[in-house]
């Protein structure tokens, strides 16, 4: 028996901000979930199961939050599942939800991811002082900066590549009313001259810390037929993992990421990603990761990703727009960031991305990664149902 085709018929996200003090944690997830149901033309009883994701519990210090959020997500009497895969969790959460529909376990599933970073301390939660260990020398930016330097060495990318990406993504965010950062006055020159935090990563090339949530309604063929607005159809989805550190680990282009993309493309019948995919929402928390992921995902040959960025191909009016929503560089509620990528990809192929819509987008890639570049989750969605 073939899999049930999976459709995204509802998408909701919160207004993202540095601190959403106006809502509790339940209020935050509710805001996104309610919008997703409204988009799908459904109400709480129409949902059969809820799949929730977020970054580790220690971020907000609420242990097993899926239990206390069940009321807010209308989950009484229904299965609630929780997914944990560090920063990629928003993506893997959506894929777990999709698998429940594809396997015909449930017909309609609500999937939600969130982070309330203002009420947590990510820096602290991720770098607990451990006895006998030397103090960690740098936070997340410091962890990734040496890998960016390695990329620059291998590819010969010009020093301002990161600034081009940051400027592009922050300009795109101006077209996205939900984005956290709306830096109307930002210029390329301001990015280039922003403080160097972890050389080679500048301040304006790093993601913000946001409060926010994202939710999607995933449903089967019958559900899609009843939906009031056009669905996005899942054409391929995959997850891959690898250890944080091992001899031969290639941080510049991790094998788990390449394998994950290969699997998604095989499922979706993509043979030339650059040609076959119209728009990509990639998890780029530090701007240099755009060219790195372009290579890892097969959009460019190894060492050539920066040329794609420099050519303008990844701009909103380019032939492969990357992060038209403004991306993680403009909005980063950690646990939700991966799901936002997936949701934005779906919005694009539904034609519902508003001012940051890529005209005529038919196939879009959503991408998430997490941990020490070790957890990958991706999906490819299309405007047409998958061939069965």
């Amino acid at each position: 028996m073939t899999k049930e085709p999976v459709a995204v018929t509802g998408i909701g996200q919160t207004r993202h901000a540095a601190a959403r003090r106006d809502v509790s944690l339940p209020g935050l997830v509710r805001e996104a979930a309610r919008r997703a149901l409204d988009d799908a033309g459904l109400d709480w009883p129409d949902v059969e199961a809820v799949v929730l994701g977020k970054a580790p519990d220690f971020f907000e210090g609420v242990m097993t939050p899926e239990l206390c959020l069940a009321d807010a997500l209308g989950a009484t009497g229904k299965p609630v599942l929780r997914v944990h895969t560090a920063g990629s969790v928003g993506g893997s959460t959506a894929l777990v939800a999709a698998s429940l529909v594809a396997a015909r376990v449930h017909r309609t599933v609500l999937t939600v991811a969130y982070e309330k970073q203002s009420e947590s301390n990510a820096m602290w939660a991720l770098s607990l002082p451990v006895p006998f260990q030397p103090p960690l020398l740098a936070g997340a930016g410091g962890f990734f900066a040496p890998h960016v330097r390695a990329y620059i060495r291998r590819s010969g990318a010009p020093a301002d590549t990161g600034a081009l990406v940051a400027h592009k993504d922050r300009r795109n965010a101006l077209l996205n009313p939900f984005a956290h950062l709306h830096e109307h006055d930002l210029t390329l020159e301001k990015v280039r001259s922003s403080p160097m935090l972890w050389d080679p990563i500048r301040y304006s090339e790093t993601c913000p810390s946001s409060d926010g949530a994202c939710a999607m309604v995933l449903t089967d063929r019958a559900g899609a037929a009843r939906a009031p607005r056009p669905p996005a159809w899942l054409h391929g989805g995959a997850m891959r993992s690898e250890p944080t550190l091992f001899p031969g680990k290639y941080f510049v282009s991790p094998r788990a990421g390449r394998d994950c993309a290969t699997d998604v493309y095989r499922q979706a019948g993509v043979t030339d990603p650059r040609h076959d995919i119209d728009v990509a929402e990639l998890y780029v928390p530090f701007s240099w990761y755009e060219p790195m992921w372009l290579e890892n995902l097969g959009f460019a040959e190894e060492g050539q990703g920066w040329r794609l960025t420099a050519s303008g191909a990844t701009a909103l009016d380019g032939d492969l727009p990357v992060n038209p929503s403004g991306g993680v560089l403009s909005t980063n509620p950690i646990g939700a960031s991966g799901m936002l990528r997936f949701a934005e990809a779906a919005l694009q192929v539904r034609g519902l991305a508003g001012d940051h819509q890529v005209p005529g987008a038919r196939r879009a890639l959503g991408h998430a990664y997490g941990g020490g570049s070790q957890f990958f989750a991706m999906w490819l969605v299309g405007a047409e149902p998958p061939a069965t």
Partner: protein
Amino acid sequence: MQADPAPGSLTAPLTLSFPFTRSLGPVLGTFLTGLRERVVLGIRTPAGRVLVPPTEYDPATGAGLGETGAFVEVAPTGTVTTWAWNPAPRPGQPLAHPFAWVLVRLDGADTALLHALDAPGPHAVRTGQRVRIRWAAERTGAITDIACFIPDPAPAAPPRPAAPHPGTFPDPVTTLTAPARLDYTHTPGRAQSRHLTALARHELTGERCPACAKVLVPPRGACPTCGVATTDVVPVGPRGTVTTFCIVNIKAKDLAIDVPYVYAHILLDGADLPLHGRIDGIPHDQVRMGLRVEAVWTPGTRHPAHYRPTGEPDAPYTAYEEHL
């Protein structure tokens, strides 16, 4: 319950504590503000049930009670629905002496509230017991504004419906701080203990994987590629090669190192996995990939204080490109 650490393992206490903050939202904020004013509020669901403590969303239907529900005031007296004796209270619990954890259904409520009952012993506690609130002298808008419950000798009053309450107070509470604390006994395990013990003698060691022969530094007990235990201790370094690095320009809160400094990945001679360290003894803007360095200890420290240039010619790119 605590398992003994493996023989030869180091152990040390590990305490994590952090004051998390919570935005309360409209319903819990009103409830906690009420406690500050010695008023216990519940919320009435569309089906007519009174929830105490109130919830933002109806557990039965998911309806938003902030929009469709209504605050009601319940009595400061109620009935124990079940209980458990706590013979050894821990720091931060409501009472410092032994007490009963109780679920109390306050008069006018349909659900029960978890709190402490101050009673002389388990013989003095029973399901169905009448209790009342003992308010804290200083109240801030927190569940601890109820210091605890105490036995109530008065007979139960005839049932009376909970009275509607507007739920508005001057100067409402909108956030609370929830301190969290976890106490562990940390052990790094046998392999890391061997490594750390050698480090105390200022010797750098790794462990070789019996399957792939890679030397892992610092060793974690198993090869991450092959999944088999490592047992052979191998001396590595003290010289090595900087494979990549960044220059840190922002000061970390609890790190006594002046910025800028160089945080580098260092492939020690004889190792197959770069470790992380700080480079010193060279201006930060002269550090480069391929720089040859060696570990420098300060007396009495276990870990190298930093790594400094050896003066050898730089390693060629091909010598370390597989370790980036």
